[in-house]
């Protein structure tokens, strides 16, 4: 019987856990652990996004807008990623991210991960596929939110 914490670990690290070891060896040296207390704004809409984050513990609200009228687009949990704008050429963030609970992340500096992907396009392709899944999830969540608003 495998303890739940190991199953959970694989789920929480799903962005990384399926890379080949040789690719992981290139990605991990770029990674930093970053923690945020509950209530902390991790990044604001319109900021220049510096990091791609993998959430490994806690919950984050992704919000449209940055004031009291902000609209929650999605609640992110361990295993999900945020800040994908960091790896695009225009790294302006499209949402505000706010920690709902104490949050632990693995953060990848966008410029360095872009350079690593340029050097190893095969690894970059795997990463981009994962991130495309992430962007698709985000689009679906936004669409659902719009449907709710219209109802």
């Amino acid at each position: 019987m495998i303890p739940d914490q190991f199953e959970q670990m694989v789920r929480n690290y799903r962005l990384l856990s399926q890379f080949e070891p040789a690719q992981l060896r290139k990605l991990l040296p770029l990674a930093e652990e970053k923690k945020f207390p509950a209530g902390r704004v991790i990044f604001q809409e319109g900021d220049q996004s510096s990091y791609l984050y993998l959430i490994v513990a806690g919950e984050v609200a992704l919000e449209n807008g940055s004031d009291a009228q902000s609209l929650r687009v999605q609640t992110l949990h361990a295993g999900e990623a945020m800040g994908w704008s960091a790896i695009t050429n225009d790294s302006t963030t499209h949402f505000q991210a706010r920690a709902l609970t104490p949050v632990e992340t693995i953060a990848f500096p966008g410029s360095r991960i872009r350079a690593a992907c340029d050097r190893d396009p095969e690894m970059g392709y795997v990463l981009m596929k994962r991130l495309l899944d992430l962007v698709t999830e985000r689009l679906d969540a936004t669409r659902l939110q719009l449907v709710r608003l219209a109802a």
Partner: protein
Amino acid sequence: MTSIPGKILEEYTVRRNRLALVQFADTTRPIFLDLVPDAHVGDYVRTHVGFATEIVPEKKARLEYDQLAKNGGMKSAEVDLLVAETQPDAVRRTKQR
């Protein structure tokens, strides 16, 4: 990417990943072993962001613990706990799901 080494207490295979329960001072946490295929129960590993990145020889691990203890970074009892022999009931070999 430097950290204190941790000792592997248990190991498991979950789908395509190898993981271990690793002891660091008075705490344990799950760690991926995919980058250190030769690491097994009883070995010491250095880790970074949840992944073991290298096996550390036991002598070297002990030296690092001693150094930390001298600097007050780790209590003696915690060091004793880390370098103690793995107890048979704590050893569970890889289980494939």
